[in-house]
């Protein structure tokens, strides 16, 4: 729910409560004013009748407004006002009247005086007040809606623009977060805080990346010493037991070194500045890499078939392109069955790498590109992360389609 809708909702609720209270107040006030006014009028009428009777004792009656009669009562009664209902022949229903009744002695005669005034029925008054209030309410809602719409378009515009910029902002690119300036205090403060925060986060992020890269570099040298020295010791005749121990130490160090090298490559891809790149035909690189991987393809007796419908050209560093292709291909070999197949379809804007699967297990597309997700323990599980990272820095996309028996990696411009 938008902030403006939320505040509108609160405002409307408040409005409903306020308007209901005010209807009650208006109703009772109106009611009492009308009553007071009526009573005053009735008293005036009574006074006028008394004056009239003094001069002219002729009795006038206009029912139900006015009834003057001589009476047998012999005591004056002060005027008394009350509500009565009187049947109206025209409207054919009981109508409410305010009635003044008194007995007056005029010229030694006693008269009973009844003056009435038709009043508005309570329900009619209520209806009048209610409909007025409702009209006001409706007008307010419409006005509010129109004003808020305009406001949210105008006042909130910099806010929404900034939200979109934040969504697109990435620490990976060396870009600074540029926010739209606003003279609204709240937005200004938000912008300030965001700018401070992103600058700090950017710095931390870069420091972390550099640390990773430096740490990996520092690790390579001692690993080189370990590997080279074990290699030299292996040159001399050893007992069977020592050979086994030395070789497993060598393998572990080699594995560590491979892992570190891949991490270094990932860090480098993340940190690398944009360099001038060549326009390369990926098809040629694929041919070369297939040739260099042929020992692995042959030993699994995998048949490989490449079809070209066009040339897939890309501005990319040659070495990066080779790493991309070798990783996709070696992944297709690794997760292939013996006597399986690899099919490549190269078009102008996409390359499909399809291979038969080693098992029918479906691969989770979300997880597959995560670091250290791996099918078997012999690889370091970074190949697909490297593929994905290269795709990101080279403005390519990679996606997966799969069935029970085959999986396709689709590389697209």
């Amino acid at each position: 729910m938008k902030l403006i809708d939320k505040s509108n909702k609160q405002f409307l609720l408040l409005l409903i409560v306020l308007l209901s209270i005010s209807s009650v107040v208006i109703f009772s006030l109106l009611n009492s004013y009308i009553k007071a006014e009526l009573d005053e009028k009735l008293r005036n009428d009574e006074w006028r009748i008394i004056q009239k009777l003094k001069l002219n004792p002729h009795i006038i009656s206009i029912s139900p407004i006015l009834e003057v009669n001589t009476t047998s009562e012999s005591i004056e009664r002060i005027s008394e006002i009350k509500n009565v209902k009187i049947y109206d022949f025209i409207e054919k229903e009981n109508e409410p009247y305010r009635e003044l009744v008194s007995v007056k002695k005029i010229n030694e005669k006693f008269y009973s005086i009844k003056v009435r005034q038709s009043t508005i029925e309570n329900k009619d008054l209520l209806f009048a007040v209610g409909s007025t209030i409702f009209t006001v309410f409706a007008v307010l809602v419409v006005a509010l809606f129109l004003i808020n719409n305009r406001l949210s378009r105008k006042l909130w515009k910099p806010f929404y623009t900034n939200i979109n910029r934040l969504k697109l902002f990435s620490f990976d690119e060396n870009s600074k977060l540029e926010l739209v300036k606003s003279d609204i205090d709240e937005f200004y403060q938000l912008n300030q805080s965001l700018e401070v925060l992103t600058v700090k986060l950017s710095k931390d992020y870069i420091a972390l990346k550099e640390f990773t890269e430096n740490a990996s570099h520092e690790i390579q040298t001692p690993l080189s010493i370990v590997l080279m020295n074990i290699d030299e010791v292996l040159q001399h005749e050893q007992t069977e037991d020592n050979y086994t121990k030395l070789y497993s130490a060598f393998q572990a160090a080699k594995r560590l070194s491979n892992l570190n090298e891949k991490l270094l490559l990932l860090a480098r891809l993340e940190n690398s500045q944009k360099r001038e790149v060549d326009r390369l035909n990926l098809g040629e690189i694929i041919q070369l890499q297939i040739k260099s991987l042929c020992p692995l393809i042959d030993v699994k007796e995998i048949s490989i078939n490449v079809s070209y419908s066009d040339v897939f050209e890309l501005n990319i560093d040659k070495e990066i392109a080779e790493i991309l292709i070798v990783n996709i291909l070696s992944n297709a070999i690794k997760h292939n069955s013996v006597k399986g197949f690899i099919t490549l379809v190269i078009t102008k804007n996409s390359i499909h790498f399809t291979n038969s699967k080693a098992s029918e297990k479906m691969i989770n597309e979300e997880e597959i590109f995560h670091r250290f997700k791996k099918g078997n323990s012999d690889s370091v599980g970074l190949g697909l992360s490297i593929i994905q990272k290269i795709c990101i820095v080279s403005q390519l996309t990679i996606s997966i389609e799969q069935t029970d028996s085959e999986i396709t990696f689709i590389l697209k411009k």
Partner: protein
Amino acid sequence: MKILIIEDVIALQTTMKEFFESKKHIVFTASNKFEAEDSLLVNQFEIILLDITLPDGNGLDLISIIKETQKNFGILILSAKNSIDDKINGLDLGADDYLTKPFHIAELNSRINALLRRKNFNNQDVIEFNEIKINTTDQEVFIAEINIHLTSKEFQLLLYLVINKERVLTKESIADHLLGNHIDYIDNYDFIYTHIKNLRKKIEQANGKDYLKTIHGIGYKYFSK
């Protein structure tokens, strides 16, 4: 042959020095740019192994000094920084090859041999080993004058074995040499066994001797006799 090793990590420097001395080369060492300049001013080297990260600066700066002071030389850059930029810079400046740490000594040896052949210092593109003759230009192999046909990977393997004869070559070293090491994958090393089997068969058919021995599940060694 004279080799200059410019490397600040003494443990690596010593291992390389001992290896090349065992191959009857004359080895000079330098642990920083300053020592390297001294050595370059008074000696002529055929091969210079150059580490990029030196305590007193970037090793790449030495390339211009090498060019000024040396006549026939090959420069092989050794770097822990597997940085594409460094590699391209190094090769642009005039280095001949680039090897990323950690590397196998056998791989270094093989690269230096290739470098020497490319530079053609002694007009030698044929490597002879007992009855085996390997022509590296035409990629041809003769066993006692019989030409045997090898696939390019088999040729690469045989050359690697012969150049690193009398040395235990781990399966890892052979795999890295044949495949390069960009691969996050070696399922198993069966492919090495397959290639070795095919190579042996072809040499055997030409009545060549089998010099190759398996070493305790570690790898292979090519014996001279």
